[in-house]
């Protein structure tokens, strides 16, 4: 579903991604872990081209995103319309939810259905209600984001992305901005999505969640994937010193 090959990205003089290769298969759940500043979020944002990349390929279902390769080998930016069409198929959930504050929960979910899918208002709202129900927020349809807890806001954001019926979902540290007691409700929704066979690429610091839900873990450090494999392998059998050090730090911090 996602194929990333030799991906390079630099911000000025600083190379954030230095040749990343990663594939995510249909219905597969892949978690990206690694120290902060390692390029995890940038990598994720390249997948729906919120971040442009300098070299390499990012393909969604076989189609290059963000650029068009001409037959003479040159590459030019993809047309805006084509890019929008590709983005419709890719749901994204952000660390800070990014709900639209002037719209109720219901309208946050219904708005893209109306503007992008072109559904009539009644139909869009009906589907939005069904999505809110799915994330356990039927009773909050009329509430504005500022009246919802962080966990509820993130669930609305997930509903907004899901309502578009994407072929895959990207999660950018979806629980990092939440109070610890609100993390669980968001992870539950993500677990149920994974169980239904959604293709998911997740940047996370929740190692327990990653261990239980991911089919594969990719550890990224200094712009490169230095280890990947089933959770068991990465968490317990990796010989890669940077992975071991990262996990050791994580254990030390979380033990009491």
């Amino acid at each position, binding site marked *: 579903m996602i194929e990333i090959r030799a991906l390079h990205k630099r911000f000025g003089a600083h190379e954030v991604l230095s040749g990343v290769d990663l594939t995510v298969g249909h219905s597969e759940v892949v978690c990206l872990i690694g120290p902060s500043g390692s390029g995890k979020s940038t990598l994720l944002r390249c997948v729906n081209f919120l971040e442009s990349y300098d070299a390499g390929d990012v393909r969604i279902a076989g189609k290059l995103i963000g650029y068009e390769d001409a037959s003479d080998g040159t590459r030019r930016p993809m047309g805006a319309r084509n890019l929008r069409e590709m*983005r419709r198929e890719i*749901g*994204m959930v952000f660390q800070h939810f*990014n709900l*639209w*504050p*002037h719209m109720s929960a219901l309208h946050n979910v219904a708005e893209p259905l109306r*503007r*992008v899918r072109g559904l009539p208002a009644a139909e869009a709202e009906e589907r939005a209600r069904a999505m809110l129900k799915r994330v356990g927020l039927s009773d909050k349809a009329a509430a504005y984001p500022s009246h919802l807890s962080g966990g509820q806001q993130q669930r609305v*954001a997930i509903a907004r992305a899901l309502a578009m019926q994407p072929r895959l979902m990207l999660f950018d540290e979806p629980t990092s901005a939440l109070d610890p007691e609100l993390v669980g409700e968001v992870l539950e929704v993500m677990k149920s999505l994974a169980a239904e066979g959604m293709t998911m690429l997740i940047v996370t610091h929740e190692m327990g969640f990653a261990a239980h839900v991911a089919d594969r873990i990719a550890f990224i450090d200094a712009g490169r994937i230095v280890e990947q494999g089933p959770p068991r392998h990465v968490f317990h059998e990796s010989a890669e010193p940077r992975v071991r050090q990262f996990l050791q730090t994580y254990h030390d911090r979380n033990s009491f």
Partner: protein
Amino acid sequence: MDLEVLWRYAPSLLSGFGVTVMCWSAGGALGLVLGFVIALLYRLRLAPLRWLLRVFIEVFRGTPFLVQLFLLYAGGPYIGLKLSATTAGVLGLGLYSSAYFAEIFRGGFAAVPVGQIEAAMSVGMKPFDVLWRVTLPSALIAAVPPIVNMLIVLSKETVVLSIITVPELMYQMQTMAAETFTAFDAIFAMAAFYWLLVEGVSRLGARLEARVTAFMAEEARPA
């Protein structure tokens, strides 16, 4: 305080107040529209256009309104722009305030968190829908308090129109003072009228603000 004199001049003071309110609202409306257009054009990111708009804003913010108005009214005819005093007054207020309103709208746009726009882009919204449904509402809500503030400032700038003989409140007051030698009474009456106007504007502004921020949680609402 000579109530008899005030009573005698009441009709001219009232008509002056009417002209003041008219010039203020027409000038303010013109300034808002113009300022909004400038802020939108500014977003196009065309370097020469931006430079021109910058010059426009700096000129109208950087020079006294009195000077601008005088140049427009007295200097206009030299470039074929013959305006009645009132038209020049309204146009002057509009141009002057548009520079401030443009900056207010620009600030409003800049205050929209980039994440809200990214969320709209990530679902594949068209640029026009992103602007119309996400950026603009957020920006306008942020702009309401400074807009109300500027309108209040502008209501008091209208006194300057008296120097180009617009028959507004200040002009009527000066006439009354000159004819009756009652400087204090006339100024007192004028202050009362302006207070009335500003009080009205700020109450309307407060209601508007409460309305557009109704969706915010109590603690998140600007005081």
